[in-house]
């Protein structure tokens, strides 16, 4: 399990990185390497050149930018996990992070890397889709953003074009007084790929009425999917209502089967975990007001 030969370049700036990527269609970005290196080792991936962006200072860091928490692509997952600002502004991501790999991979794995590899059961892309985050992409033409929903296409497939580099993920911050989150996941072992993961975020007004709601499901099909739970808004739904809503909303999911779990299982549990994540989020939001 030794990678095929490649050249290694460590550009000094993101502009230089993009030039390198644009000039060579066999070049790939490497950052934390926690997803890419196993693929290199198995020779599933065989770029001719690795462009290492891990140490570009402008790509590392967590900053609040108005109503957005922008996380630089090379920010390590553990940095986010330990960041008070991120925990406060983005409690859903904070809940999801302990499920990402295990401690040693979070020490090196980056937020941008997880997004760029688009594993359908990865937690960070799920949170990005759930909250309608924007993926910041830099290429020789400049910086642009793309909604997470458009960015993820399928396993390992994203809208990134040759010469593109994911440089940040911009998560919207909900500024409501009462925001609650819920995150559930099931996998064979805790650190394995999720069969199903559900992420929910809810905002309530002072009367306890739902004013904003988001639910995302990962692991079930080719990519994380944001379900339409707008039906929750304006009400104080009980469990039955939530179950019905999630069941209807989940009709859009397409589940895959593999040796670990059947498609039926994924579909059923998507509803179960979706409901639980929402219930937790409601409970959390209600508790948050006290």
């Amino acid at each position: 399990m030794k990678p095929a030969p490649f050249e290694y370049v460590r550009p000094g700036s993101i502009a230089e990185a993009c030039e390198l990527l644009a000039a060579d269609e066999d070049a790939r970005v490497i950052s934390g390497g926690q997803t890419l290196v196993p693929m290199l080792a198995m020779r599933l991936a065989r770029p001719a050149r690795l462009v290492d962006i891990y140490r570009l200072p402008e790509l590392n860091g967590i900053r609040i930018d108005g109503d957005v928490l922008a996380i630089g692509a090379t920010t390590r997952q553990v940095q986010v996990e330990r960041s008070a600002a991120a925990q406060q502004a983005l409690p859903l991501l904070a809940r999801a992070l302990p499920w990402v790999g295990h401690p040693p991979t979070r020490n090196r794995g980056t937020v941008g890397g997880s997004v760029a590899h688009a594993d359908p059961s990865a937690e960070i892309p799920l949170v990005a889709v759930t909250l309608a985050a924007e993926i910041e992409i830099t290429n020789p033409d400049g910086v642009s953003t793309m909604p997470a929903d458009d960015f993820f296409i399928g396993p390992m497939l994203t809208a990134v074009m040759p010469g593109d580099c994911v440089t940040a993920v911009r998560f919207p911050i909900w500024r409501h007084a009462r925001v609650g989150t819920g995150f559930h996941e099931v996998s064979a072992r805790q650190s394995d790929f999720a069969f199903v993961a559900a992420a929910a975020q809810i905002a309530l007004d002072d009367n306890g009425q739902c004013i904003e709601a988001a639910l995302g499901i990962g692991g079930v099909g080719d990519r994380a999917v944001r379900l339409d739970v707008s039906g929750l808004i304006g009400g104080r739904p009980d469990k039955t209502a939530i179950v019905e809503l999630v069941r209807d909303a989940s009709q859009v999911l397409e589940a895959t089967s593999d040796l670990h779990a059947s498609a039926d299982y994924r579909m059923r549990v998507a509803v179960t975990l979706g409901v639980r994540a929402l219930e937790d989020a409601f409970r959390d939001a209600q508790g948050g007001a006290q």
Partner: protein
Amino acid sequence: MKLDIGGSETIPAPVDALWVALNDPAVLIRCIPGCKSMTETSPDAYKVEMQLRVAAVGGSFEGAISLSDKDAPKSCNIQVSGSGSLGHGNGTARFDLEPEGDGTKLTYKGNGEIGGLVAGVGQRILMSVSKHLIGRFFVALRKEFEASASKGVA
């Protein structure tokens, strides 16, 4: 592992033109993602070299493509087999062409079998990668005719 594919696409070209294109190695080289060369080994049989690249996944393959049961310009069967470092695969598919408006509706249905490394470690991505590759093929095929159409206007 088994892989089933199927679907239909509308191509902005008359049936006859599409038929000719689909039998033209030059067109196929341009349209098959990663196809580097196609050499005719006997009538309707080609040796192909491919350099596949889908996101981070990539590998080179050598294989053969042959066409059979041709019923010009309506249908034909295509057999594909290949192997490379990532594994081997073979499959057959049937194409049916029928006019649809100004263009042609191309319906395909086939199945394949894949073995080796990708069958073992790439299951999670194979289905979606194959869909993606088929998608790229049709995008390229459509472009062929869009290009020739614009040329025609000029």
